[in-house]
Each structure stands twice: as structure tokens, then as C-alpha cells.
């Protein structure tokens, strides 16, 4: 056991304690956390700064807004309903299209009634998925038509890319893939697959699922390695700019790749998890320390991306 402990320390593997004390408490001022906890604020800030985001169709936070729900659901291309203050992908409902019968087709192929959607929106608004249980609002936004580049290694749903940014420098990235087990969500807690990405090339490396290392996608059976993420430098720049917008020194930027619109910033996370270490099969400690010491303050986003790629080399 002591051997494991020493090995992990040598490999620079960090735990939740170190993440909380040395990075979140150190780099993320509490009053700024609000900017990313509420996704409507994040979206607004990102739009102002010119970072592309999925279009917002509407926000429902009270009984009055609820009256317009049926109207707002009339998006022929479907839409996503999610809590503005949600965490870890909880409470997200993916509607792929409204049906003639008045019910809705979900992304996982099931059908749901308007009442069920209304109940879900109600639950969101009453704070069921919010971080502190406070009343929340439901966001209705553009449903991403994901690029076909990941078709061979994803099962329904939307794959997304998580980039960890420390003091504005992108330091690590992973591709998150939905599986049958995760119900179409790219959520590692629910059995999604995480694939480490080469920070310089955007090429997929190795994967993990349910905390264990994997090399093939469990549903499609295809090898996870060797796929290059398109628009890679643009994604890194978007993640780096998220730091300028929020001022959070330790954040995870979640980016999706739309078929037509290219990379879109989905949300920011002020408490990104540590499973990325298993996906990359290496500890984050060393590169995080290097980013803490790096002089990033007067550099613009593109320069910081280069710094991160140099650190990762």
C-alpha cells in the first residue's frame, strides 16, 4: 500500500484533497464561482467575448414562463433542457424532435409526453438538480448536431471535449464519449468513456470507463486511439479565453463539436474532476505545478495555448 502511495506521488497523481486545497481554494475566488455555476451567466459572458456557444432558446424559472413552454418546445431540430445550476450533467433532457402526436422524441429513442417534460422543467425550477438545492431555472438551448468524426467511437448522444485550464494555460484534455450504459450522456460517472488527448495534436490516446482503463469503445468495439479532433487549436484557444472571461484560475471547459457551427463552448466547471488522470494514464501534478509557476499573466490566449503545448511536450 505504501508502495502504491509512493508510486502515485512520483507519477504526480493528485487527489481530491490537493485539488481542493491547492487549486480550487487557491485559484477560484468564491464570488467568481457564481459565473460558472449559473450557466446562463456563463453563456452571456462567453457570447460577449465572442466565444461561440449553443444558441439559447429560452429560460424558464417560474410559473409565468411555464405558460410558454409548449411554444418554446416547437424546435424542429429538437433542443436541450438543462438546469442552469446543474452539476455533473444531472437533469439534462435531450429532445431530438417534437412529434405530430404532441409528444416528443428523446435522443435515446424513447418518447415522452408534454406532461413529463413539464414535470422535468418543474423539477429543475424547484432546485432538484441545483448545487445547493436553491430554486433554479431551466435553460432551453440549441441541440448540437455532433460532427461525424467520432461516430466510430460513440454510442448515440453528444461526445464532448473537456479541457483543464490553469491560470489561463490549457494543461490537459480529454474526449468524453457516450455509451449505452451512460444513456447517451458523455458523463463519466454514468459509465461514459473518457479518452485522453494529446495536447499538441488533439489526437486521441488511451481511454477509461467506470474508473478502469479501456482501449476500445464498449459498444462499437472500435479502437479509441488515433483519431484527431478537428479545430483543435481553436478549441484550446476558446478554453484559454474562458479564463479571461471568468477569472477562474482552475477550470474545466466543456466544448462540443457541431457539424455546421464548429466548436461550441457548452459550459465551464470550477471544480473539474480528476478522472482525466486515468484517461491520460498519467498524473496531472507535474504539469499543474509547471503551469502554476509559468508567467501567463500578460499573455494572450493564443500565447498561453502555445505555453500549455510546450509544457505538455
Amino acid at each position, binding site marked *: 500500500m505504501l508502495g502504491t*502511495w509512493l508510486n502515485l506521488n512520483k507519477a504526480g497523481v493528485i487527489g481530491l484533497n490537493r485539488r481542493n486545497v491547492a487549486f480550487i481554494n487557491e485559484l477560484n475566488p468564491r464570488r467568481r464561482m457564481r459565473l460558472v455555476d449559473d450557466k446562463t451567466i456563463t453563456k452571456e459572458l462567453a457570447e460577449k467575448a465572442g466565444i461561440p456557444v449553443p444558441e439559447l432558446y429560452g429560460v424558464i424559472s417560474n410559473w409565468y414562463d411555464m405558460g410558454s413552454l409548449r411554444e418554446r418546445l416547437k424546435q424542429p431540430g429538437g433542443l436541450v433542457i438543462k438546469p442552469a445550476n446543474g452539476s455533473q450533467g444531472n437533469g439534462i433532457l435531450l429532445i431530438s424532435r417534437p412529434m405530430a402526436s404532441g409528444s416528443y422524441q428523446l435522443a435515446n429513442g424513447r418518447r415522452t409526453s408534454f406532461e413529463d417534460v413539464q414535470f422535468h422543467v418543474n423539477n429543475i425550477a424547484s432546485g432538484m438538480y441545483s448545487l445547493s438545492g436553491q430554486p433554479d431555472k431551466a435553460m432551453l438551448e440549441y441541440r448540437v448536431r455532433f460532427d461525424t468524426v467520432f461516430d466510430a467511437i460513440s454510442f448515440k448522444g453528444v461526445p464532448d471535449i473537456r479541457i483543464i485550464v490553469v491560470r489561463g494555460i490549457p494543461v490537459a484534455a480529454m474526449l468524453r464519449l457516450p455509451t449505452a450504459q451512460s444513456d447517451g450522456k458523455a458523463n463519466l460517472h454514468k459509465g461514459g468513456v473518457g479518452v485522453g488527448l494529446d495536447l499538441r495534436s488533439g489526437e486521441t490516446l488511451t481511454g477509461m470507463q467506470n474508473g478502469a482503463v479501456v482501449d476500445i469503445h464498449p459498444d462499437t468495439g472500435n479502437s479509441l486511439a488515433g483519431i484527431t479532433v478537428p479545430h483543435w487549436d481553436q478549441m484550446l484557444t476558446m478554453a484559454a479565453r474562458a479564463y479571461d472571461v471568468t477569472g477562474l484560475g482552475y477550470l474545466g471547459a466543456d466544448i462540443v463539436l457541431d457539424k455546421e457551427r464548429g466548436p461550441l463552448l457548452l459550459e465551464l466547471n470550477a471544480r473539474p474532476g480528476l478522472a482525466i488522470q486515468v484517461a491520460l494514464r498519467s498524473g496531472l501534478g507535474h504539469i499543474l505545478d509547471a503551469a502554476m509557476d509559468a508567467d501567463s499573466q500578460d499573455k494572450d490566449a493564443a500565447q498561453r495555448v502555445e505555453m500549455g503545448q510546450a509544457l505538455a511536450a
Partner: protein
Amino acid sequence: MNSSAHTRILALLCLTIGLGIFVYKTSSFQTPLTAEVQETVWDIELFIDFMARDEPVRVEAFIPGTAGGRQIAQEQFYNGAFGHRVVEGAALTEDGEVAPQNRLNRKSIWTYRYPNDRKILRYQGRITAQDGETPIAPFGKKAQANLLARIADDVKRQAFLVWSSDLQRQSADADSFAALVVEQIFSEQPSDEVLTLLKDLPPSTARLVLARNVLISQKIPARIANGVVLTGPMRQAQVQHWLEYAPDGVGLRYFPGEALDRFFAIWFGEKPLIQADGAYELSAQISLSPVVVSGEIAAAMSGLATAPLVSWLRFDRLPLTTQLVYGVLVTIPVGITLLVFLRQFIGVQTLGTFMPVLIGIAFRETALWNGIFLFSLLVGLGLAARFYLERLKLLLVPRLAVILIFVVICMAAISLAAAGSGQNIGLSISLFPMVIMTMTIERMSIVWEEYSAWDAIKQGMGSLIVAALSYLVMSNNQVEYLMFHFPELLFVLMGLCLLMGKYTGLRLSELIRFRALAKRS
């Protein structure tokens, strides 16, 4: 100064203060670090609380008597503005004459002409426990009284005569007469005569009064003793009644129900503990606490009482009821510190932050296995209800309310079911914190749905394990003794928690989580 250095300095300060006082107390005054709780010496407190309404108030309360060589140490009265005197023995008269049992009694009498508002009166003393071996205080010579004359009801008088002469015929001497009396009065199905005679007597002491009367009518000295059972620290002790009699000049005790191991007689006779005029909403409470007395600690404590710096840092200066509260309160930080360790170093996942410790506190009342059983049962039932409610698609807050009400219904049902089967878990379940149970159920069901059943059970088990461990630590006698007598250790716990707040290493659970990464390097 960066935050790490700041934390370390603060932690060091806490540890220095705490350990400094601790070492000072143990070395300079030889305060022992362990003490066996002796169960022979107890602190007793009588706490009287009432409303006064601008009319003269007179409160009389029996306090432990000193007749028969009994020693009551460290007596204290809290009288407020009341006039106060203590009357004992022959000076206690009832209807102008000295009742025989009053020879042994002592009364505290508080009076005030125009009191107003809520008033509190308090008596505290240190007593020596009695047990089966303790000799019975001698009976007075004036044991017999003309009881027949006092029975006003003809039917009753007749029943008394018939029954007592029957008993007399069936017995050979005073000894066998007394045995018969006790047997017949306290039998499961008493005879019709006994039932007639028991009528109109206060139910709690009826049989004792009758037994005493019959014995006295046959010139056998007898009296009713009222006191408390000494089983452990208690904030609201029940008054117990028993019979003391001496058929052949040898004192005997008869306890209705089970015989008591360790007890203390506060007063004798059938009068209530407290008689009051002009006092409204009167409530009286007897608190008991075993005293940790060894020669060593007594000496140390008297040394500490005069020491300049640490003399105020002692809980035994507080009233007994407050002492009993602090006895429990100061152990909670130990449980909390344990919880911090389990979360930060081991990585045990729990539902809610301090919830497990609160459950652990509830275990104090239920004992460990009962507590774990009840907790699992309630959470299990609540989860079942929660999954059913999911189908009804209710709003969050009303749904929580429904679950809370359901939890209360389950608690009541368990109590009622247990009452029928003679189990005493029924009472203790009501002390389970129901709001915490409700939140546990809600969180667990969300984890169940959002993650998996396995995650939910894992976190539930984690909570239960932390609750059980914190209970074991908090109820440990040594921990209780140390925390109560050395409250400065609270600073040490605070220092430890400060240090743990800056621990950045891996948790034990993370060694398993990241084990794949250890193999590669």
C-alpha cells in the same frame, strides 16, 4: 504570509494552548488521566421550575435526610430571592402531630410574598448509593396507629377486618404474616378484598400504602420509601417507591416489580416530593450523575479550584443538569474530528457532511445494534416510499414533506408495535432526528437514480459506518472522562482539524481509484 503558514501557526497555537493547559493540569495537580467511574457516589440535583402570579408562594420539597447517620456532602441551595429554611425530623409536623416516617425526612421550604414570572429553585447534594446490603434506618417506637378508625368507608373497614384476620389465621408469626401480606397484595390477581381496599388510593403507591397499613395494624413497623434508581447519568430520573418493614426487628425492603441493585431513598411516607401553594405550571426534575471520585482526583480538583489560571475551566462548577449536557456536548467534537479524518484521509463517502455524526448521537439513545437496525429500517422504508412517489411526479418541497411525514408515521408504527411486544426500542426511536432521516432518504434516492444503486448503497453504508464509529468514540468512557475534565483538549481537536484542512495528499480510496497509474510508473 501565505495561507499554509497562517494555518500552521494557528494550528500550532491551538495545540500549544490545549496541550499546555492539559500538561499543566496533569503535572502540577496530578490529575489522573483515567478514572474508573465509581458507582457509589452520585450527585443529585432537584430542579424546580414554576410560574408565580403575584401571590404568596410556598414550595416544600423533600430532600435527602441525614437521619440514621447518612452523609450528604456538598449541599447547595439555589434560592434566588426566596426565603429558605430546612426543616427535619421531629420539627416536621402534619396536622399538628409528628408522623413516624417524618423522623427520617428533611424538607426544604422556600417562601416568598410577592413573586412574579418564572422562578427556578434548585437543590444539589452528593449522596452515597444504597444497595441491598445497606442497613435500613431504625423504625420509631410509635409504629402502630389506630388505622381502623381512619377508614371511613364501612365496606372498606369490613373488608380490611376480614382480610387481615384471615391473614393472621394463616400465618404463624410476624415474619410469615408479612410475607403473606406482600404476596397477596403484589400478586398478579389480587383477591376481591384487596381490590376493594386498593380503590380510591393513588395508583402509583396504592399497594404500598395498603401493605404498610396492614403491617402497622399488626404492630409490624413499616413505611413507604421514595427514591431513585441509580443506573447511569440521567437528566430526568423517575421517582420509585418501595416498602421497608421489620417483622422481627430485622429491616427488609420490598421492591414492587424488579429488585433494584443500586438506589437511594430520598424521603419516606406517601406525601408527594413537592407540595406547593401559589405556584403554577410547576415542574420538578431530578438529575443524577455518578461522581468520578478517587482520592487522587478529589485532591487534584480541590487544587484546581484554587489555581489562578485554570480554575474557571471546569465544568463541575456548573449546575448538574448543565454538566450532564456538557458531558455529551464535549464528546461531539471528537466524533467530528474522526469524521474529518475518515473523509480526508480514508475517503469514506457519506450522505451529507455532518449527518453521520448526528446519527451517531442518536445511537446514544438506542444503543449500537438497535440504532443500526432502526436506521436501516427507516431508510429502507423511506426509500421505498420515495421511489413510489417518483411516479406521482410531485414538486420537490411537497415531496420532501410527504417523506418526512411518512418517516414519522413509520417511527410511530415501530414504537407502537414494539410497545406491544415489550421491547424498549420503541421509546428510543422517537429520538432519531427525522429531518436528517428525510434528507438522507432524498439524497440517497437521487444518488440511486443519477448514479447507481451501488453508489447509493455505498454512500449509505459509508454514513452508517461513520455513524457507528463516531458513536463508539463519543460514548467511550475514557473519551467522556478526558473531554469533560480536560475541556482544553477542544483546542487540540481544533488544531488537528486545521492541520487536516491543509492535507493535500491522496486519500486511501484514491490509491484504489488510481491504482492503474501506479503500475505504469
